């Protein structure tokens, strides 16, 4: 067992060259190699891959460093950076994914993780729509949901044996994954996720969501609204078992959270069909046509 510093060093190295999810690689290559790619397809494809989404956001926010506010809109990023630049970035991320497909996702199942991430993104956005949030902010809710578990990717890939242990402990002890990650690897996916968000320079909102989505009580910041929304979407995805990200026994959310958001469990339940249909739509899109 390595000590925490060694583990973090391994993870930092991995983050610098983090690949796309294997599930999206073929579609990315198809779209990015097509000279007539439609911006809408490019937009949709990126929104289905948390790693690629993070990388595009990193590029737009680090290139235009004089921006007054963090950009979280993919549409805006594609217009500002240009289709070629975004396609180029997608290609390089996909190529990394191609190289590392073998042996990837040994503990967590890739399809389950992808479905979970997408479900939380879609549901966070649906909750925001239900709560009549500003349409301009909707994409930020989606991105936050899509990225909330990003920290699991390096843990799953670089510490696969330990991650298998952590996952089996969740079943044995019926406990939440982040606690068992800490026990087996000394770090949890929230901490690792924060390293990624910092490395990608995605700003304080994303950093807060990724780091605090299991620590709502101790959250001191100003992004409570979006944090609670993602936490509710995450709980919904885990409870309704849409996808699987290793958290079979998540901590229950306090009733006050629903009151604060002004939503009910029935509201969430009503979103199940829409969330599933969005995921299926994405799945059809990702199946590469020959």
């Amino acid at each position, binding site marked *: 067992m390595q000590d925490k510093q060694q583990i973090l060093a391994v993870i930092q190295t991995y983050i610098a060259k983090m690949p796309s999810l294997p599930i999206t690689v073929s579609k990315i290559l198809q779209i990015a190699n097509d000279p007539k790619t439609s911006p*809408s397809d490019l937009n949709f494809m990126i929104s289905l891959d948390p790693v690629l989404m993070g990388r595009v956001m990193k590029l737009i926010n680090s290139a235009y460093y004089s921006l007054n506010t963090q950009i979280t809109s993919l549409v805006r990023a594609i217009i*500002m950076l240009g289709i070629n630049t975004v396609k180029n970035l997608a290609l390089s991320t996909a190529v990394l994914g191609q190289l590392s497909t073998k042996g990837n996702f040994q503990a967590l199942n890739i399809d389950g993780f992808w479905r979970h991430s997408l479900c939380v993104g879609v549901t966070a956005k649906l909750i925001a729509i239900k709560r009549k949030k500003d349409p301009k902010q909707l994409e930020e809710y989606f991105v936050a949901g899509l990225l909330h578990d990003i920290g699991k990717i390096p843990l799953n890939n670089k510490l696969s044996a330990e991650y298998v242990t952590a996952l089996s402990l969740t079943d044995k002890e019926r406990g939440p994954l982040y606690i068992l990650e800490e026990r087996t690897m000394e770090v949890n996916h929230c901490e690792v996720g924060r390293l990624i968000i910092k490395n990608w320079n995605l700003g304080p909102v994303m950093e807060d969501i990724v780091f605090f989505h299991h620590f709502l009580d101790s959250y001191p910041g100003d992004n409570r609204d979006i944090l609670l929304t993602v936490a509710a979407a995450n709980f919904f995805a885990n409870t309704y078992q849409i996808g699987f990200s290793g958290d079979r026994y998540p901590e229950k959310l306090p009733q006050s959270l629903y009151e604060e958001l002004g939503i009910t469990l029935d509201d969430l339940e009503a979103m199940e069909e829409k969330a599933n249909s969005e995921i299926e739509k994405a799945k059809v899109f990702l199946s590469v046509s020959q």
Partner: protein
Amino acid sequence: MSIRLTFWGVRGSIPVPGPTTVKYGGNTSCLELRFGKEDRLIIMDFGSGIRELATVIMKKDLPRGPIKTSVFLTHTHSDHIMGFPFFTPLFLPTTELDIYGPVSFEDDTLDKIVGDQLRYRYFPIRLEELRAKINYFPLKEGSLDLGGGLTVTTKYLNHPILVLGYRFEFDGKVLCTAYDHEMFQNVFEAKPDQPGYNEAAVKEGEIAAREQNEKVQQFYKDADILVHDTQYTHKEYLAGKKGWGHSTFGSAIKSAHKAGVKHLVLFHHDPLRTDQQLEGLYKAYMSLIRGRTRMKVSIAQEGKTIEV
């Protein structure tokens, strides 16, 4: 004189020597900027025009002392860097060159992208054999104080690669470049019955494109000289050149006028454009805007100098 601008390359895409381009010139982008009484030299782009400029520098500047200058690259497409190996001062041990250009977000750095042209597969001399001292400075959006009262501000433009526009300010005068550049477009624009129509993206895209175009206009606001990409006519643009990263005469004139530019220079001529066509287009646009703007408009021409 505060700023003196001389064109050594005005053509887009590829050098096109020949009888039909002899008046305005066939070399690709290269601008010589001179500032103040000291005749301080700044070079814009290493297009094929740099070869002629190098000859002038060797004759005029070298006798006054070692060549120490800065080069600002708008981007690294080949027509803007192809002349690099032919910049003769590179081969002098006394030369000091600061090369600025947009940061690359790919694996290769600015020095590698530019310097890689000096490899045996492309050129008989290797980069390592150069005697000059070269420093590279990758740039993002921002402002730089270049000393001696000269400042430069950068702005990302719209092209299929990250491109920087430059705004030089000296002695109360402003010179801007906006090439290679296409007005930002809402690439998500679609009709509701089109496949993949996304209403939110259409609206967001419209706002984003408008805001970016306003920012570009703000960037060259009140410039004394603006050198702007005008590669296409509106008709050519609509016939398959959308998204290629170049502006039309009409859009450049309109935008520069709105920004209060004093002198707009039409630049980055299409390789297929003959001298005769260029003059024909110029006359047509001048008659369209006559009496509607106080802005002076001229065609960038190799060897021609503009002073403010």
